[in-house]
């Protein structure tokens, strides 16, 4: 843990002093855009909840304010969110998951702000207006507004979650469908060395590999195929438990390419890949003479799908028309 802090804050203690920024730098709108995708309306209201509460709570009768836990308590409960957001916003290296911890407090802030607004509109302002009729109408309108907000939020959120599963759910499905082999298949049996029952390979889709839990029993470690990535890929642990403490060869902390990682295609029994429209080289998936498709699932071809809205949200009738789907496949070598 201390090492983690040293690396990220002091730049790894290495000579180049780059630390976390080795893995990408995003501009200042990244987090706001990201929160809008993940929490849409609640992100907006949640981020504005501090000023909103500071403005609305003094308008409430003291009894109502007390029933809500008091002015300071409400502001205190949302203040941590602002501190954390400020810290992450000031760091150049930004990732979606960094803001996960803010989701509960964004929900809380939005809920408190809506609750206060509802009370101010139905009691506070109405009390000043005096008459009963407009008072009721105002209260009803405020409740209607909140109901609309909640309904819109739920619809947008469901649409986004559905888009995630429908557009990007293929890797989990496809990796779950890897064929099992009982003995080394003929195709690779001629190669030297002690052979596992099978070898699974992945090229440009290396970063969507869900985990080694998905490799069938008896399979060797996942093999990497060279496919345009210039950074450092993981390599198999040494045998248990030596891999915990033994110094692995070919490891650097500067995300430099390690050529020793890659294998040749002829060592592979199965390959997982996707055929995108924009890709320069044909993928193994396309070569039907050598490879047999075992299982395929549709996967969003983001570069070929031009509508941002249709990509980010699943809109029945619209998304499927505007989006281009590629085939995400596991293929097995024909025997």
């Amino acid at each position, binding site marked *: 843990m201390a*090492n*983690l802090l040293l690396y990220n804050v002091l730049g790894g203690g290495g000579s180049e002093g780059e630390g976390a920024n080795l893995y990408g730098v995003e501009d200042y709108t990244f987090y706001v855009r990201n929160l809008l995708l*993940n929490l849409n309306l609640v992100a907006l209201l949640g981020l504005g909840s501090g000023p909103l509460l500071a403005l609305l709570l003094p308008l409430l009768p003291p009894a109502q304010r007390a029933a809500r836990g008091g002015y300071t308590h409400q502001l205190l409960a949302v203040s941590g969110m602002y501190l954390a957001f400020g810290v992450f916003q000031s760091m150049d290296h930004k990732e979606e998951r960094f803001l996960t911890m803010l989701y509960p407090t964004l929900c*809380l802030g939005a809920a408190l702000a809506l609750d206060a607004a509802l009370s101010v509109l139905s009691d506070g302002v109405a009390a000043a207006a005096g008459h009963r009729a407009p008072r009721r109408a105002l209260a009803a309108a405020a409740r209607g507004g909140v109901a609309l907000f909640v309904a819109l939020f739920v619809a947008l959120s469901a649409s986004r979650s559905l888009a995630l599963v429908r557009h990007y759910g293929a890797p989990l499905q496809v990796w779950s469908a890897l064929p099992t082999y009982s003995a080394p298949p003929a195709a690779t049996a001629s190669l030297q060395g002690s052979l596992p029952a099978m070898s699974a390979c992945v090229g440009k889709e290396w970063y969507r590999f869900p985990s080694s839990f998905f490799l*069938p029993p008896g399979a060797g470690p996942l093999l990497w195929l060279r496919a345009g990535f210039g950074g450092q890929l993981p390599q198999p642990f040494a045998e248990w438990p030596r891999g*915990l403490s033994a110094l692995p060869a070919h490891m650097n902390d500067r995300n430099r390419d390690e050529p020793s990682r890659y294998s040749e295609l002829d060592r592979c029994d199965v390959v997982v890949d996707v055929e995108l429209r924009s890709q320069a080289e044909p993928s193994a998936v396309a070569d039907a003479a050598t490879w047999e498709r075992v299982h395929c699932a549709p996967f969003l071809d983001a570069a070929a799908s031009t509508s941002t809205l249709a990509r980010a949200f699943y809109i029945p009738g619209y998304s499927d028309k505007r989006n281009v789907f590629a085939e995400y496949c596991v293929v097995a070598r024909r025997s």
Partner: protein
Amino acid sequence: MPAKPQTINAYKVALLTKPQTINDYKVALLKLRVGLPPKNAKLEEYEKRWIEATAAAPPGVRKPALPAMQTRAWWLGAPAFVALLAVRSLAAATAPIMDCDETFNYWEPLSYLLRGTGMQTWEYSPEFALRSWVYIEVHALVLRLLPATLLSGANPFFALRQALAILCALSETLFCRAVARRFGVRPATLVLVFSGASSGMFHAGVALLPSTTCMYCVLLGYAAWLSGRHRLGLMAGCLAVLLAWPFVAPMFVPMGLHALAVLGAASVALCAVGGLLSFGLLPALLDGYLYYGAGRYEPQP
């Protein structure tokens, strides 16, 4: 002459039972030794003085940490948990992994602990030792409790995700209940809908990532804090900061300051030391002796 409250209990009664009529207010205000408003004042004026007086309790009398209000909102109990669990469970079965870091820095070391195979990132090289094996082992423990026959193929992956779904739904339920007690049932119900439906929680709620662990700690720590249990809240903060991810610290700064004001510096320092020992020093020692340093007496290859 109005009788002075003789005991702490008398103060508590005066604090907690809100008067209904002007006459009741007069009695209550006199008991609290607060001046009465002018004769023709309205009920609101009495109410205002009563609230001001009860907010500033006399020194030595601590206001009850928990508002006595018991939430009558039945839906914030088991129904909330079941509904949240249904959504999280669906995510556990279908949500894609959003970040390859989750695979290579968390699922792969877990696979190595359970099956002896997996891919190693440079962060897990003992030379750099950036990640904690203890953090992985805590998750592995859940799977070790299950019978081995259930753990073939990709089952451990989905089983652990379902366990995370249960933990997430439980944390969210406790958070909503604490919000109900502190801020009212209406905001709590809104939080339930917002959190339960949001697409951010859909994928992040079941991720095997320190950032998600931090999110659970925020839910549980804030639930404890809002219920007036500052020490418990601080321990959740220590766990998040020391075992999961240090950058979560700002989320717990307001709670820490509030605890300083309520509990005093000595009590907060004791919490911090306790947290440091159990979530900082202990895991660091285990990591050093059992994992990264396990082979220190063997000749290096």
